[in-house]
């Protein structure tokens, strides 16, 4: 506790919700102000840039649907990450898990002989399974061999990206694609339906929103959710309570990786209708989802909102490229700034300022 004139600054243990919300909004605003400097340095008036973005994304139906389209993979990856972060498992591998889902989905869509009715459900199942397997490996490596999961999940992103490159340049390269590094187009039965006139593949969106609600319920209302939180907050307590680390972390990562993989399924089956080079499938959704989950402060339902915010930033990136001639890399700078500003604001939440009472002690 510190006294400055009539004011007292003191620590608080758990910030109330409205403070968390207010501080988070403030952090995003500060980041946008900092980003204005980047515009200015580029010789673009920040006012004009933000006005263009506002009109082009929020002001039209096409713009709004672009936001949603970009938000779909972010919701799926973000929800999965909130779960992993609750267990204090640093899953930085959503990008690779997303690509794993895209690979499995493409395999089923192109090469599996099944009746058309079954094709899409199997695409989803295979995608989820592939992501789950890819995500469970680092969990097991951590529990059994103490391999730091930040490293292993990250390395597995690169590995999966090169596997995708290899597939589209090599064995899966489409004979009809005349030298381009694509697979053949998916059959119609393996393509996701879109909301008419947009690129919003709504089944994936519905799955994402449902997943957010279900994961939210699991975390707050079930025994498993309780165990996930205990494992995250106090590993020692978990041990004394007889909670199995291996089981809890493995389950967490099955869900986390599976959901990220569904994001990949959505991109190949809903947008591209084929497997192509990783930078086209993902644009770094898996990495951005880390910020989505962090901003959501561990709440899967809040991740829907924060995913929409970053969907907006991606859509704005497209727009700035086409209307203002600014490079798309500016979204990376944006995202970095928001994350910086968010973590700096954390400290703010744990302090409060109030009027001191007369004669209150100095400490």
């Amino acid at each position: 506790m510190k006294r400055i004139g009539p004011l007292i600054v003191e620590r608080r243990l758990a910030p109330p919700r409205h403070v968390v919300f207010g501080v988070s909004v403030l952090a995003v605003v500060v980041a946008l102000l900092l980003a204005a400097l980047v515009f200015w340095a580029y010789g673009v008036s920040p006012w004009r840039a933000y006005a263009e973005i506002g009109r082009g994304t929020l002001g039209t139906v096409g713009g709004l649907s672009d936001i949603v389209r970009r938000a779909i993979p972010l919701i799926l990856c973000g929800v999965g990450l909130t779960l992993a972060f609750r267990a204090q498992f640093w899953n930085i591998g959503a990008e690779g898990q997303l690509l794993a889902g895209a690979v499995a989905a493409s395999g089923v869509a192109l090469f599996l002989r099944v009746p058309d009715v079954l094709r899409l459900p199997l695409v989803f199942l295979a995608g989820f399974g592939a992501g789950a397997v890819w995500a469970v490996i680092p969990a097991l490596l951590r529990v059994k061999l103490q391999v730091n999961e930040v490293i292993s999940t990250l390395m597995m992103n690169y590995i999966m990206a090169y596997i995708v490159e290899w597939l589209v340049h090599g064995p899966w390269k489409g004979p009809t694609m005349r030298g381009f590094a694509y697979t053949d187009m998916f059959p119609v039965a393996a393509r996701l339906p879109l909301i008419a006139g947009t690129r919003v593949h709504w089944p994936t969106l519905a799955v994402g929103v449902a997943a957010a609600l279900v994961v939210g319920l699991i975390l707050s209302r079930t025994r498993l959710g309780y165990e996930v939180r205990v494992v995250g907050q106090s590993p020692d307590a978990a041990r004394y309570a007889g909670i199995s680390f291996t089981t809890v972390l493995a389950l967490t990562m099955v869900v986390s990786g599976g959901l990220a993989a569904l994001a990949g399924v959505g991109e190949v089956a809903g947008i591209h209708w084929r497997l192509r080079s990783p930078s086209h499938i993902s644009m770094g959704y898996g990495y951005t989802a880390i910020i989505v989950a962090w901003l959501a402060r561990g709440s899967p339902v809040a991740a829907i909102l924060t995913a929409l915010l970053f969907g907006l930033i991606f859509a704005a990136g497209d727009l700035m490229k086409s209307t203002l001639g600014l490079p798309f890399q500016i979204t990376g700078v944006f995202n970095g700034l928001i994350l910086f500003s968010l973590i700096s604001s954390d400290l703010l939440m744990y302090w409060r300022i109030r009027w001191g009472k007369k004669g209150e002690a100095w400490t």
Partner: protein
Amino acid sequence: MDLGWLVSTVSRALAFGVPLLWGTLGEIYAERSGVVNLGVEGMMILGAYAGFAVAQTVGVPALGLLAAAVVGAAAALWHAFLTVTLRANQYVSGLALTLFGLGLAGLLGRGWEGKPLRVPLGAITVPGLAEIPVLGPMLFVDQTILTYLGVLLAVILWVVLFRTRWGVVIRSVGESPATADSLGINVTLVRYLCVALGGLLAGVGGGYLSVAYRPSWTEGMTAGMGWIVIALTIFASWDPLRAIWGAFFFGALYHLSFRLQAYVSPELLKLMPYAFAILVLAVSGFGGARWRRRAPGSLGIPYVRGER
């Protein structure tokens, strides 16, 4: 396998290991003081960009490297401010630094994309030693000064860390900041300095790529090396001397992933260093305590005076 092939492979492996070595040495110091910096990739790419931009403009490669060092250190100081002073989560701050660095370098470097550097850092021949048969051409020809400076630096940093009072101070801050504090050591200062040194070395590592190894600028030219550095830090058990072997081993892996393209598809070869990074950490997990020394006791934990 003929001798010429082996000689050139070892020589190039050494050259490719240099940025890994510099980066790892820096990260070892940061982590020894108790701060994880996952922003190595970001600091390296910023260093690579700054190095190229200055060397291209001024025409002096050494100044490019200096700029790379300064930019790397500045980026690291930002991480130190967030994690030491504001006590932000070290993992998230480092990730933010990487995202930001990759974005900013990509943004600023648009005009330079694909351009070769006017005056690259020249290779040197070590007089005398270069005459030794086989070993001479392997180790003492066609390297830049940074190869030897890096090895020398590793030895110096090892001596400082394990044989001097400063080393004791750094290690005690990383093990138990409360104890260090009670002995009158300025924990904040030590952490700031170590993190800044880490950024400085990572910056030079990045600058080496754009000014010496592949004298040109390409977006994302660090290609995940920053992450390999973080794996190497663990693999080297936070020991500067072990970092030498680790860095050159991964340098060899990177080089072979180009070299073997005649036999295996290039995409599969390129994933090799990343797969090995996991493998190496898993194997050292098997070896248990004998192989792997313990991480610094308070690694990743912000220090607040009066709190436990």
